[in-house]
């Protein structure tokens, strides 16, 4: 294929921010784009249905069949460095958005460098934010899967090791041990994500945690076609989105949360009250100021016991109480960590020069940043650094936080400080705008 010729085969475009894929054959009917709408014909005021960015933030995604290696061609030329020692290549741990983003950038910059992607899951490509919108859209797991991991690996000419757990690192020898063999590496990129917080009150055998497509698919199967009594615990972004999604899908949803209002850790009471009202209008029952003390098996479904003594019964309980980085590998490798893997702000390099990290597993300024927005830029910086290519460095800015609830789309920009005062800028029944300021500088803006 001539790289300089316009590629007419491209019919897929990926949102660089959230990973959502625009497929010309499917269009975006929810936004008024019928199937068959060419990307260039999409009006400029169209926004990504998942994260809200504009057309400019999309890039072409070559179709899986367009770059299949011809039969007989060696996948890997014998890459050698100047000392004559065979190169081990780049190993990526994690088959989620972060892992695939960095694999895509590396391959775009270097068509030959050996890349191995180690994924505990099947590494199928999907947009994680869609998991909290899929029930009400009547989607199945196969609808959410944009591309199989194997197809993506073939398209990018990388070696994929699916359902393979990275279990150990020898940082001196530069070897990664996995459940399917040990891999030497020249550069190791940790894109392992974060895992749901585990608390004794929420046994994994009874309580769902929706952090992967596989978990969502299992929940979808469990729910089946019946109307279910679902209890959501935790009213952060994911809890609020899942609650509304399940309620819109026709289920009986109770949202149990600490504090007086949903999203209480980031929203002022005035906005929290609006969100509470909107969730109620969607049919969600809210139980504020409540803490779950135990979840146990009941005759039919599960019983959720609250600290105050009340017991609720449900068919499914979903905990959305937060994420934490699994630091076991990082500790074994002797990497500097705090609440996540500590990385250089500009290169995303860890305290070990051969190991980089991005996405949900890292911390920047002693803060985790578990949003999909910054991942593309992080992947770009790492890909340049690993390949020794010049790059201006990653510039971190807190991404806008968007609540994808259809009843009350909400956006929070800047650096909200839970302790600072919110000033009301605009307040009508249709729209609420509030700001936090330091002197004359606006530090955070909230629009509901």
């Amino acid at each position, binding site marked *: 294929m001539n790289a300089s010729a316009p590629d007419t085969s491209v019919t897929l475009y990926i949102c660089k921010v959230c990973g959502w894929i625009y497929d010309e054959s499917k269009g975006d009917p929810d936004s008024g784009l019928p199937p068959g709408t060419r990307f260039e014909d999409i009006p400029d005021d169209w926004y990504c249905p998942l994260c809200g960015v504009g057309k400019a933030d999309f890039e072409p995604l070559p179709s899986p069949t367009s770059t299949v290696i011809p039969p007989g061609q060696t996948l890997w030329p014998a890459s050698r460095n100047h000392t004559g020692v065979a190169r081990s290549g780049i190993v990526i741990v994690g088959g989620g958005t972060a892992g695939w983003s960095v694999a895509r950038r590396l391959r775009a910059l270097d068509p030959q460098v050996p890349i191995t992607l180690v994924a*505990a899951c099947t590494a199928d490509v999907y947009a994680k934010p869609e998991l909290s919108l899929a029930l009400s859209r009547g989607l199945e797991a196969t609808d959410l899967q944009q591309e199989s991991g194997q197809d993506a690996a073939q398209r990018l000419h990388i070696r994929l090791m699916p*359902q393979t*757990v990275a*279990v*150990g690192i*020898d940082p*001196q*020898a530069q070897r990664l*041990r996995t*459940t*399917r063999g*040990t891999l030497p590496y020249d550069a190791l990129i940790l894109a392992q994500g974060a*895992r749901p917080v585990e608390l004794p009150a929420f046994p*994994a*055998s*009874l*309580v*769902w945690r929706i952090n*992967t497509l*596989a*978990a969502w698919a*299992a*929940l979808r199967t*469990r729910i089946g076609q019946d109307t279910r009594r679902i209890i959501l615990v935790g009213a952060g972004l994911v809890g609020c989105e899942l609650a509304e999604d399940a309620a819109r899908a026709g289920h009986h949803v109770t949202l149990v949360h600490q504090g007086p209002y949903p999203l209480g850790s980031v929203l002022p009471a005035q906005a929290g009250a609006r969100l509470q009202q909107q969730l109620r209008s969607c049919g969600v029952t809210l139980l504020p100021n409540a803490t779950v003390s135990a979840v146990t098996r009941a005759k039919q479904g599960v019983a959720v016991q609250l600290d105050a003594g009340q017991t609720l019964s449900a068919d*499914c309980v979903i905990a959305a109480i937060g994420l934490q980085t699994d630091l*076991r590998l990082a500790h*074994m490798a002797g990497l500097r960590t705090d609440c996540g893997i500590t990385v250089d702000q500009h290169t995303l390099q860890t305290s070990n020069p051969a190991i980089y990290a991005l996405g949900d597993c890292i911390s920047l300024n002693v803060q985790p940043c578990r949003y999909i927005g910054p991942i593309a830029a992080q992947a770009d910086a790492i890909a340049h650094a690993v390949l020794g290519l010049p790059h201006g460095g990653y510039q971190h800015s807190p991404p806008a936080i968007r609540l994808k609830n259809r009843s009350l789309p909400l956006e929070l920009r800047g650096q909200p400080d839970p302790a600072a005062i919110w000033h009301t800028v605009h307040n009508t029944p249709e729209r609420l705008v509030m700001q936090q300021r330091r002197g004359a500088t606006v530090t955070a803006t909230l629009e509901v």
Partner: protein
Amino acid sequence: MLPHPSHTVSDLPPEAASTTGNTSCEGLSGRIEQIARTRLGSLASTIDQDGYYPLDVLEELAQAGLFSPLANRDAPDLVQAMRGVAAVSRWCGSTGFLVWCHMACALYLAAAPDASLNTDLLVQHLKGARFGGTALSNPIKAQAGIEKMALNATRVSGGYLVDGTLPWVSHIAPGQYCGAVASLGDARTEQVLFLLRLDRPELLFKCPHFSGMEGTSTWGIRLQAHFVPEQDVIAAPAAPLLQKIKAPFLLLQCGMAAGIIQGAIDSMHEVEGVLGHVNQYLHDRPDTLAAELKTLEERVILLARSPAPQERDYLLDLLDIRAHGAELALRATQSALLHQGARGYLSSAAPQRRVHEAQFVAIVTPAIKHLRYEMARLAQEEVPV
């Protein structure tokens, strides 16, 4: 090699504690290393190929204090015990394995409620007056969901009747004993761990010829309504004890790997003067392997000193370090053979023997594949049924 930790104080009667005749750790270690070097250095091939069962060497090593790190029943000194396994395995993998079997059996005896086991027999065991091994390969695999329990026990007055066959169990012989586990009742959900006394020769049957490690006295065991008296029961239910001994079981096996790797590095250094000019073109050179061995040993010591067998991360670390040891042993022994060339390929040469010693470490329970299977299972995201 593993650094010298401070030695634990024995809680056994003075007779057992004094079997070493020496409470100095440095002295103990030096004598063990000396016996291993002088006795096993020349015997290793006879043990490995001709099936010589070196009980005399084991007794000598026991007298030198090889097993005294396990004398403290509640707090065995695993680091020191591992050093012992490694010191022996460096010279002879088969004997290193026998030491491991003997130590595993000592851990069962120490956990037994009956004084005839936890004191009388343990004393004899630690000083090398009595010998016995472990038949826990099958129950450990069964616990990990890899295979079914081979022995089944029925409760009877005064004890249990046990039926079943175990294909190969090492460091046993007529008159010796081993720890064994049988499932209980029809549901087979519970298990009992007991001391199986091999006091009748008909309980044992011969195994086929192996490619090496012939001197490990490996037999098949066939039990038909075999009575196990109550006082020989070590744990019922067995699950809590099986979980508790998992860490020492695996960490002591890492001692076998560490010793074999060190032996392989020794063999490389032996020929560096004469073959260094061509060996420089090999990968996995002795300095590379020594650095990886050091990393392995440091991690083993860390895990031995901070046991947390209930925690998922600790279990993963434990399984990973055991697999790491086996993988490194395979690489190191392969490389040592390449470094020595034809001289290492002689049937009496240590490098070729160590290749199958390392293969043994990689396939003995838990084998690399079992370890990976279990790590994958532990790492799996659990969802409600």
